[in-house]
């Protein structure tokens, strides 16, 4: 049930991927464009193309700085849409790309972005088959904005629906979190902090494919925890499934350097964006098989079970400590900011 959109103007928070974004979508957009497919708000829309199902998705990419260790807005835009298709259970087939370029941007910057797009496209085997380019005045577009739309072929026999989530289902995370968000934050240069870290931006399709092949019938839900982090994705799951989701602090994989950066800056790694990981809810009896399948793929070696769905019908996310206490992990509110207090 969509609540009305109470805010009188658009704020930055509406784009941060947390609660305010949710409000924008559910309160402002959904009521006006409502239709059965849209209302599901899945990562990709499932279209019936004359009896043959197709997955259809789009995403836009606004990142500062445009280039950072391990990536570039170009590769981000390609992988991002590939991943949305993947976590919807669809084999990515092709991508369209719209470039909005700010007048005055150096050609070399655009070249770099296009090269990164080409690299991501060829590495993942998903061609950029078309697109559009617009140029806007200096002062708009932060250099480059990219929107990519992707089309994919749903894997048959898979039914991803948060309402099929059952108590006892396991939560799988494909690898360490926080790499992308921290890399980008440090790359902005405002904090004068260095770390040997790169964005995890990559296609998760190989991991998802392995997962679906091994136990597709037992996979209930998948999501790539981008903006807003694992906390936001799992809160969305809690809301959509109506259940309490419980994760264990000590099981969550985090690189030492990411942990260090989060401690220094007072950030919660659960709220930091990732661009190369995937969350999956898998039936308990298939969980071990699922982990083995993902771990057998290069890049999936760190896949791990981080928690489970509880029987409690109270939609929220809880994180437990190894000494018997717990805390509620809320959705992100606006962008997470470093603190000194």
């Amino acid at each position, binding site marked *: 049930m969509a609540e009305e959109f109470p805010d009188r103007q658009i*704020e*930055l*928070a509406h784009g941060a991927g947390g*609660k*305010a974004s949710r409000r924008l979508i559910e309160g402002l957009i959904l009521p006006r464009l409502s239709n059965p497919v849209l209302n599901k708000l899945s990562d990709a829309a499932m279209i019936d193309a004359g009896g043959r199902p197709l997955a259809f998705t789009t995403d836009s990419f606004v990142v500062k700085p445009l280039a950072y260790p391990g990536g570039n807005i170009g590769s981000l835009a390609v992988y991002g849409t590939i991943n949305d298709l993947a976590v919807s259970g669809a084999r990515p087939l092709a991508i369209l790309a719209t470039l909005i370029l700010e007048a005055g941007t150096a050609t070399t910057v655009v070249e770099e972005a296009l090269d990164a797009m080409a690299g991501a496209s060829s590495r993942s085997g998903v061609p950029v088959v078309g697109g559009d380019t617009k140029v806007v005045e200096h002062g708009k577009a932060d250099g480059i904005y990219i929107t990519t739309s992707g089309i994919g072929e749903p894997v048959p026999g898979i039914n991803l629906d948060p309402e099929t989530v059952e108590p006892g289902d396991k939560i799988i995370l494909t690898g360490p979190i926080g790499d992308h968000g921290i890399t980008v934050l440090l790359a902005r240069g*405002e*904090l*004068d*902090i260095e770390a040997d870290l790169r964005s995890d931006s990559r296609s998760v399709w190989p991991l998802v494919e392995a997962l679906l092949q091994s136990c597709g019938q037992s996979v209930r839900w998948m999501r790539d925890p981008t903006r807003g982090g694992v906390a936001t994705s799992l809160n969305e799951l809690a809301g959509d499934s109506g259940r309490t989701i419980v994760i264990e602090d000590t099981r969550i994989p985090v690189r*030492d350097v990411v*942990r*260090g950066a989060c*401690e220094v*800056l*007072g950030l919660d790694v659960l709220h930091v964006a990732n661009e190369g990981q995937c969350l999956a809810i898998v039936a308990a009896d298939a969980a071990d098989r699922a982990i083995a399948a993902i771990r057998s793929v290069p890049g999936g070696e760190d896949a791990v079970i981080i928690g489970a769905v509880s029987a409690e019908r109270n939609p*929220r996310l*809880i994180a437990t*400590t*190894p*000494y*018997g*206490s*717990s*805390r*509620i992990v*809320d959705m992100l*509110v*606006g962008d997470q*900011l*470093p*603190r*000194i*207090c």
Partner: protein
Amino acid sequence: MKYVDEFRNPELIKKTAEEIKSLVGDSRFRVMEVCGGHTHAIYRFGLEQLLPDGIELIHGPGCPVCILPMDRVDEGLAIARAPDVVLTVYGDMMRVPGYEGSPLEMKAKGLDIRMVYSPLDALKIAGAHPDKSVVFFAIGFETTAPATALTVLQAKEMGLTNFSVFVNHVTVIPPMRAVLDDPDMKIDGFVGPGHVATVIGAGGYEEIARDYKKPVIVSGFEPLDILQSLLMLVKQLKTGEARVENQYDRVVSWDANPTAREVLARVFELREDFEWRGLGSIAASAVKLTEEFKDFDAEVKYATLLARHRSERDGDGSLNRERHDDAPCGKVLKGLMKPHQCALFGRECTPERPVGALMVSSEGSCAAYFNYVGEKNKIG
């Protein structure tokens, strides 16, 4: 992480919690943790859940963002509107609401407001942009003041003319006294701010133990630190002692840091009084720059602008400030009320639309409560 992980050891945490439980027995104690950092840690690690019912934790006013009056935020933003000003703020400040918006909102509207991790970064910006007037919005207790002081000294050494500081540094003893002087308050002892103590020394809290006969345990910030401090506190309370003890002795010593003391004495002097959000005006509780450094004092540099801003603000009776000033932040700050007991909590006041700074600052008790305990005060 060294010196962090060892103090989050699950076995030791369980053991210490057990020990506290058996020591408290049937007694009931009201303990205040002064420092917002402790409040945050308590909620983040769920420490309250490990404590027996006999210990009631009261969250104190040691959150430099929470106690900053909205007027001061507005004054900082007024300065940001001056031509060529780059206002540099800590991340904590970005979402604190003034009457017309927060620094983050003002930045989105076009003001040049930049987040920094250290005052040294603000200095760097000043050095790199001689055409801009870089103003650093300084907040914090005694822990953070020396950083500002050393930065000002460096600015002077560098001969910078485009760097100034909007000083809002406050001190920790006066609000502790204000809380203890309040007849409605009943506090048995304190978990004392450990990082402030790296500057003022554990002995800096002596006057509280001496004048009010309440024990103060100077505490570190990891779960084991806080639990051990509570254990030490309960031991004293059971035997009727009232001493200052230093739990955080791996970093804190009894005496004040001599360099810090010297630098603070040279760069800062006490203001006669200072308005604390929710606590009213407290004498000798905040500092300003000394005469020697008036060239680096934003309140001097922008005196005319601020005078005009203040007269517009105070003269305009139509400004609807009633609701904000009535917000029970003060009661929560003093520990007289729990966050969820505030009528605005979770309704008009949420981390997304905060009415008061206790909901903005991640160490404000309301934000900590909302984020970690939830709107309904129940876990598990």
